[in-house]
């Protein structure tokens, strides 16, 4: 099972990752990150398939995926 | 080495090559074009690059890239083209990049005309571009001096990591005189640490950009850095030639071609018993204030001699004399400078002061 690792400190809350995640692993939150943006959150119930779409769309290098 | 007969522009170009300059980017404009024409074939012979760019703007900004890579780089222009170079000169200064930029001065503002003039003094010495900068400006009076100053200009530029301007004019650029050319040198582009090359793994990143960003809190450190840099230039780089100024009652101040006419005027005046002398600034900036400190108490007045309408150098002369001596101006626009007129003016001045 793939694992998505998000560096929430870097997140600017653009949610491009959530818009491309086919499994809804990454979803918007209303929680504020250290930069003052509402950041992304991870739905622990959902399973990451390691497609890399979120990684490819993140402009702020917040996301890595491991097998 | 034996002397050769060469046109001023071509001799200057050859001298730059011999100083190790291997990059030229520029655009045709009279009376500078021979430099571009000469380097278009000669650069190939020495293994350098000569690019005829789409504009003067592209010329100076392409030079900035080559200079950033550590090359000894040259661009040359005249009058209207020199206005377009100003953007790049400001960027070179702000980025601490050495380069040599030659303005073969022509006459007039707007298009003006292609013949002899000295109307770019303010633009050369005040910093024609935006911001807070100065540049060393070298002003030769002969083909030989063009060669000598151009040869040393690259060293000077690298000494300060700063562009150096050379102000020749249409007469010096176009006339043919015997010159002795210096030895051919090669310049290693990795001579200086600042020269940009790719980052090796583990090295810190380097950027050539507005220099104050290089220091943490650079915005507060930059003013002192600039004041020291420009202060050192003013203290160490003033150059001039004094001609019979020791006993002169009227001292002319003239540079470039005008200085040659002034020298003839001294011979003519002295035959008539008029004690005329000359201070010839070789650096227009830093202006050779020290030359004026050496003047004796016998000096009655100063005559600023320039080929322009407004007497652009006069303010600097007044500042250099501490406003203690009367300063008059003799200039021509359309006609050649006249040694006869200079002697007449000197006589008038002696009767007045």
């Amino acid at each position, binding site marked *: 099972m*793939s694992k998505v690792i998000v560096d929430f400190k*870097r997140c*600017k*809350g*653009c*949610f*491009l990752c959530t*818009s*491309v995640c086919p499994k809804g692993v990454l979803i918007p939150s209303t929680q504020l990150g250290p930069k003052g*943006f509402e950041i992304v959150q991870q739905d622990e119930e959902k399973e990451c398939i*390691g*497609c*890399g*779409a979120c990684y*490819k*769309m*993140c*402009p*702020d*290098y917040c*996301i*890595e*995926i*491991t*097998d | 080495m034996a002397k050769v007969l060469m046109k001023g522009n071509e001799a200057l170009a050859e001298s730059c090559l011999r100083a190790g300059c291997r*990059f030229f*980017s520029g655009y045709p404009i009279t009376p500078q074009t021979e430099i571009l024409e000469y380097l278009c074939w000669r650069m190939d012979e020495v293994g350098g690059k000569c*690019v005829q*760019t*789409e*504009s003067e*703007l*592209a010329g100076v*900004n*392409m*030079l*900035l*890239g*080559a*200079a*950033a*890579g*550590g*090359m000894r780089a040259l661009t040359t222009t005249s009058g209207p083209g020199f206005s377009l170079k100003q*953007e*790049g000169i400001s*960027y070179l200064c702000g980025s601490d990049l050495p380069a040599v930029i030659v303005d073969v001065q022509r006459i007039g503002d707007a298009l003006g005309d292609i013949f002899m003039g000295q109307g770019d003094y303010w633009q050369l010495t005040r910093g024609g571009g935006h911001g807070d900068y100065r540049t060393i400006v070298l002003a030769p009076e002969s083909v030989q001096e063009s060669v000598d100053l151009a040869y040393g200009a690259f060293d000077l530029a690298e000494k300060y990591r700063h562009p150096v301007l050379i102000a020749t004019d249409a007469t010096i650029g176009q006339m043919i005189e015997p010159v002795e050319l210096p030895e051919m040198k090669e310049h290693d*582009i990795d001579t200086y640490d600042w020269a*940009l*090359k*790719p*980052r*090796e*793994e583990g090295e810190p*990143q*380097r*950027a*050539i*950009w*507005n220099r104050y960003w290089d220091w943490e809190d650079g915005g507060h450190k930059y003013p002192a850095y600039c004041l020291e840099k420009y202060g050192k230039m003013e203290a160490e780089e003033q150059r001039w030639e004094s001609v019979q100024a020791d006993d002169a009652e009227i001292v002319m101040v003239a540079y470039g071609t005008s200085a040659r006419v002034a020298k003839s005027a001294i011979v003519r005046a002295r035959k008539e018993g008029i004690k005329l002398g000359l201070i010839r600034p070789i650096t227009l900036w830093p202006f050779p204030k020290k030359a004026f400190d050496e003047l004796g108490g016998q000096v009655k007045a100063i005559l600023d001699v320039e080929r322009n309408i407004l007497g652009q150098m006069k303010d600097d002369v007044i500042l250099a004399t501490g406003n203690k001596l009367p300063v008059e101006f003799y200039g021509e626009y359309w006609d050649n400078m006249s040694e006869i007129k200079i002697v007449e003016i000197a006589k008038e001045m002696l009767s007045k002061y």
Partner: protein
Amino acid sequence: MNFTIPKDIDMTQQASWCPGCGHGIICRIITEAVEELGVSNKVLTVDDVACGQFGQFAMKYNTVMGAHGRTIATAAGLKHARPDCLVIARPGDGSAYSIGIESTLYSAIRNDNILAIVINNSVFGMTGGQMSPATLPGMKTATSPFGRDEKKNGSMLDITKILSQTDMAYLARGAVNTPANTEKTKKMIKKALEKQMNGEGFCLIDVLSMCPTNWKMSEIDACEFIKTTQSKYLPLGEFIDKGGDK
């Protein structure tokens, strides 16, 4: 499959682009293309002023900041000084197609052996979203508040139509609005860098890139805007590929 941040991305700092800006994605695919080719120690970049300049904080490459609009000319000069290096200029559409169009055109005409990656968001970004040459017909910007009127403002500039007349090595348009387009654009960058290594000449990749702030839409809507509108006026694809597929 593993997806890890490229080592040429500087994770010790963060560029201050607006949320959802395409610049960050473009810097990532540049570094990935470079790393896949194994040429990290050969790259020099030339940044434009304004938003693109932040790229130097995102990427670790040594860099020169050119004057606005002169990035490509400065890159050509740097390439003369360092012919063994891979020189990448990163202007925006305002820089490369408005103030710097002469240098863009002449680098193509001279076939300077450099790569220009033009981040095209159809506006002047840093100055607050004014109309650029690549502003689409009818598109509202700070200087075309009622929409770009071609009678008043002139027609939109599609650089591929102009440069297709030249003998440059490679001309393509990508986008970073979807994961698939991002991958395709990365392949274009890789191809162009290979061409530079082969000495083929001038490569320009126009990359359609989101500017949610100045387009005044959400980050996700900005991606959709590229798909439904910007790429309709400015079609994606390869327009010149002199060396062909290798």
